[in-house]
Structure formats: structure tokens, C-alpha cells
């Protein structure tokens, strides 16, 4: 889906009145924002968190290999995005999710295992545009804010690339060199 500037502006202003939808965030990322609502309105992935009470069946365990090689394990609900999991479980990944899931940066870049990657919904142009700027891009790279948990992802391992640099840096650096 193409999100135009106007679209984003409209969505974001709509969001301001819709801050109650979606599970609440840790205060850290919340001040005055309704970005969960924005996702529901289409800036983010079309993740769907089941509204009925969550049973253990709706939970999925995922593993993250952090930049320093540390393995972090967390449980998320089916339908939550991987950015949600990192935020809700307070996983300590430096600089992760700077734009809070609005497709305006590439800090939630994650590298997937081949068999999981193949089953993901294809990336939108907008996600591809931001991925273009991600540092350490691989064939199985995606943005964590755009990937929603499914049962099939149980026990998968995703890798955080070595540095969070945004490739506008590579451009800029290339030019300066």
C-alpha cells in the first residue's frame, strides 16, 4: 500500500484522537503518541492482535541474537509486531525502533532464518525504501516493525545486524571520501 505524505499527515492527525486502541505501551515510548492506533490505520503492518483474552496458545517464543552476540528470549502474542515484542519486553537493543514503527527509519532491521523469511508476507515499497538504507543489509533482512508474529514463528531466531547505521550514511560517507 502506498502511503503518501498527505496520507501520513492525515493518519497521524487521526491518530491523536485514537490513542486508546491497541495494547498500551511502556511509558518510555508513550508520551502523547498514538502510534499503535496509527498502525491500526495502516502506517504499520496489518498486524492483528486477537481481542479475546489471550490464552497460552496465542503466545509465541522468539529469540534475538543481539549485536554483542547475546541471546535474548521473549514471548509475544500472535499478531504483535517484533518491535512490539522488543518494546513490551524491554529488550535491551541499542537504538532499536527510533521512529516508533512509523517507517521513517531502519533501526529495527532484523535478519531472519531462510525458512522463516520465505513465509513472510512480501515487503511493501515503503519498507523496501527504508531497508535500502539499513546497514548490513542481507537477502533475508526485514524491518521488525513490519513483521507480525504468527504461530509458525514459534522458536525462530532473528539476528540484530552489527551496527544500526542507516545507509544514507554509506552514501554520504562515500561522497565525502
Amino acid at each position, binding site marked *: 500500500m*502506498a502511503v*503518501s*505524505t*498527505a496520507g*501520513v*499527515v*492525515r493518519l*497521524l*492527525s487521526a491518530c*491523536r484522537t485514537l490513542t486508546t486502541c491497541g495494547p498500551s505501551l511502556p511509558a*518510555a*515510548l*508513550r*508520551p*502523547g*503518541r498514538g*502510534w499503535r492506533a496509527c498502525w491500526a490505520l495502516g*502506517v504499520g503492518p496489518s498486524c492483528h492482535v486477537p481481542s479475546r483474552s489471550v490464552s497460552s496458545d496465542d503466545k509465541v517464543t522468539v529469540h534475538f541474537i543481539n549485536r554483542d552476540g547475546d541471546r535474548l528470549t521473549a514471548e509475544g502474542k500472535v499478531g504483535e509486531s517484533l518491535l512490539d515484542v522488543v518494546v513490551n519486553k524491554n529488550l535491551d537493543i*541499542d*537504538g532499536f525502533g*527510533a*521512529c*516508533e514503527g*512509523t*517507517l*521513517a*527509519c*531502519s*533501526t529495527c532491521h532484523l535478519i531472519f532464518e531462510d525458512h522463516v523469511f520465505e513465509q513472510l508476507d512480501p515487503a511493501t*515499497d*515503503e519498507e*523496501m*525504501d*527504508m531497508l*535500502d*538504507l539499513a546497514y548490513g*543489509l542481507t537477502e533475508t533482512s526485514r524491518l521488525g516493525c513490519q513483521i507480525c508474529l504468527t504461530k509458525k514463528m514459534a522458536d525462530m531466531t532473528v539476528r540484530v545486524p552489527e*551496527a*544500526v*547505521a*542507516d*545507509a*544514507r*550514511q*554509506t*552514501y*554520504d560517507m*562515500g*561522497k*565525502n571520501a
Partner: protein
Amino acid sequence: MGARWWICGVSSGRNLRSLAARLHPAVVLGLGKLLSTASSTPQVCVVGSGPAGFYTAQHLLKHHKQVQVDIYEKLPVPFGLVRFGVAPDHPEVKNVINSFTQTAHSDRCAFYGNITVGKDVTVEELQQAYHAVVLSYGAEDNRMLGISGEHLPGVYSARAFVGWYNGLPENQNLEPDLSSETAVILGQGNVALDVARILLTPPDLLRKTDITAHSLEAIAHSKVKRVWLVGRRGPLQVAFTIKELREMINLPGTKPLLRPGDFEGLRDVIKDVPRPRKRLTELMIKSALEKPYEREAARWVSATREWGLKFLRSPTEILPGVNGKQAVGIRLAVNRLEGSGESAVAVPTGEFENVECGLILSSIGYKSLPIAPSLPFDAKQGIIPNSMGRVHNVPGLYCSGWVKRGPTGVIITTMNDSFDTAQSVLDDLSSGVLDTSICKPGFPSLKEMLQHRGVHSVSFSDWEKINAAETAKGSEVGKPREKILDLQLMLQLARQ
């Protein structure tokens, strides 16, 4: 000046300072001496509160459990280019303010706004008060074209124009002349695209952003219908990025003017270039050479405004009108490329092209300035010479952000280099290069002197009063905020 005393602590500087405030000075002095025999609280000062300043502070506070970080800012309001640079129709980019606000709320971090380092307090004075000083003051000037007519009315730097629509106090009297149909923007970076988009976006869309009220009014009455973005090199060397280009191509009410001849044959050339450049070029080729989809075609037909890319053109002269007092056009030298790829060089062919236009915006890059004559500064590159953020030949002095790297890179690039600089400070603290057995008092030692000089600092909670006033004023008209443009008014609100 009265008796000066302050305290160095092994725990949170602020707690001890508030304890000190309640004790008799003699007791405090004794306590200070006692504590300074052990290693004292490392006191770090950061100059500038843009992304570089805040990310440096964030990394220091996260990875050192005692350090006190004080952020000094020239303006009464924080966040640098996130407030005064990032385009008003990109609110999502400004989400980083949430994490900066968290950092500012840490009880080991303090914000001192309305203090210009180099004028109100010198870097040497800061170095006496702090174990380490990090210069993160960004790039406050712009590169000049160096051609005749550059100072004529009708010619502006993109920096000043951006400052004008984003509410930077120093640019509020710019009054750009928007009465001509054609505007030329020199440069093909993301700032150039920001400026083109703001000039061409239907005003009703801008109305819902935090663009300043008076610039919105001026833009709503603008006669500009056509914007040329002029690059000295070719389509394979543009500096803007794909997200921003796509946004421009999809801009409501506008159509792109791309000359097919500029893009023919490029498909073969980009086969082997890295993915970002390849996808970016493919998007230009598609818009220039392929038949548009129905919706796009319909938009082009009904478009009332247009924008285009001109390649291989270097500005040589601004053409004055008959009275000699106003720009009415620009003379461009036609170039050809020598070499290929990112490093290709533009060489004049000897031919020229004149373009009629009454508005010329120069967007060829920002520029950092030195803030103290005694400090090392590389005037050619416009940066402070450094290794991993350690300023050459000045122990205890560091730099991060645009003043360290030059004025390129997005917020995340700035974040990474600020983390690197903060890491250098942390390494120097743990290796003893920064000697914390010497007590450094931090802000309390400068407070009296600043008052003496008539400088009244603005705290983060003072800023929150300004912020509340701005958001309240904005919500009356359905905007996220209406920025306050007057420094005196900001200070008044802060003092309430």
C-alpha cells in the same frame, strides 16, 4: 563574586548538591574535601541539544552509573534540527523527541538552555568545571555559491528558508518573495526535496502540521507553480534518497517533469550498482520513461503544479532585473561528467543555459563554524579535527554529530557517531585518561558567573512550560503545536 563552594560526590551529583544546599558552607567544604579523595562523580558537559547532544548523553548515562551529564543549549528550546530542520509534514521523524525527553528526565541529566557557549561561557571555563566537554553544536551556517548576484532579493539559502517555515527565531523576518511562477533550487539532496515539497504541497495538507502560521499564510498565497531542482552532476549522482523521491512523485496536485533523454540507457548502467542507488535510479527511470498507472495519469492531467530535475548544470550567475535590485533568472553552465559512479566529476562544456525565475534557493549544504578561536578547526572540511570523537591536541575535549563528521547524514547516522564519541569518553574515564580524582564541580561553579553576566538559563521543566503553551495554541486550530517564534516570549513563559 561571593564565596564559591561546591561539592564533588561519589554518588549522584544532584543529590549531594541538594544536601549541600541545606548544610552550612563550612560543613560542605569539609565534606567536599573528604569525598574528593576518592574518585568523584564524573562531570560531563555536552554543548548543543540536537540529536548528537542527546544521543551522546543517552549513551553516557546508560553505560555509566554515576556520571552527571549537563546539556548546554544556545536557544531556550531543545532538540536542534529535529525541531528546526525536519520538515513539518514528517511528524513521525520527530518521534525521537520522546526518547530525548526521557533522557532529559534522568536525575543525572540537566538541560541548561539559553546559554551560548563561546559567548556566555567559554569552552575553557567549561573545561575547568567539567571532567569532559563534548561539542555537539551542529552546523549553523551554509555553504555559499560564490557567484555574482547571490545577495540579490529573491535568492535565499535553503537553510534560512527551512528556518523560516520551521520557526527558527533568527529567520522570522526572511519574508521570501513567492510572487514568481518558477523557482529554482540549487542542489539535489534531501533538503532540496524538503524545500520543493513544502513549496508545492497543497496548503490544506500543511495546515495540519506544525508549520508556523505566518509561513503557511505566505505559502498559501504563493504564486510558485514550477520548481526545478538543479544538480551539477547526473541522475546517478543525486544525493536524495528513495523514500523522499517517492513522496515527491506521489505529491497530490503535482506532476514530475523528467526529461526522458536524461534516463535512456541508464537501465544497463545500474545493473551492478549497490541496491539503494539501483532502486532509486529505477524509480526515476520508471517515472520518466514508463506509461503511468491510471491513477497517476489522472493526477498528472489535473495537476496545477509541477517539479522537475535538471542535470549537469552549475550556477554561474544570478541575473538581476532592469532595476538591478531583484533576481529574475539564473545562468547555468552546462556540464559533462568525467569518470563514473559516485565519484564522477562535473566539467563545464562551455555552453550555457538561462532559466527565468524570481525565486532561487541554494541548497548545497550546511556548514559548521568554530566557536572559539583557540580550538582546532578544519575550515576546509568544516569540522573539528578528531579521532573517534577525541578532539586532536585538546585532552578532555570531544565532539559528536555534524560538527564532528560534516553536515551529512540522517538522525540515525548522528546517533551512531554520538554513541562512538560517548564510548570514547567512557573508555577514557575507565582508563584514567580523564582524572576523576580531581574534583570538578560542574554547573554550580558557573551559576553565579552566568548570573553576573546577565545570562538566565532555561531548565528542561521550563521548556516543558513553553511546550505546553505551544501544544495548547496548536490544538485550538487542529495543529500538533504552534511554535513560539519570539525569544523574549519563550523566556517569559519559562519564568512563569
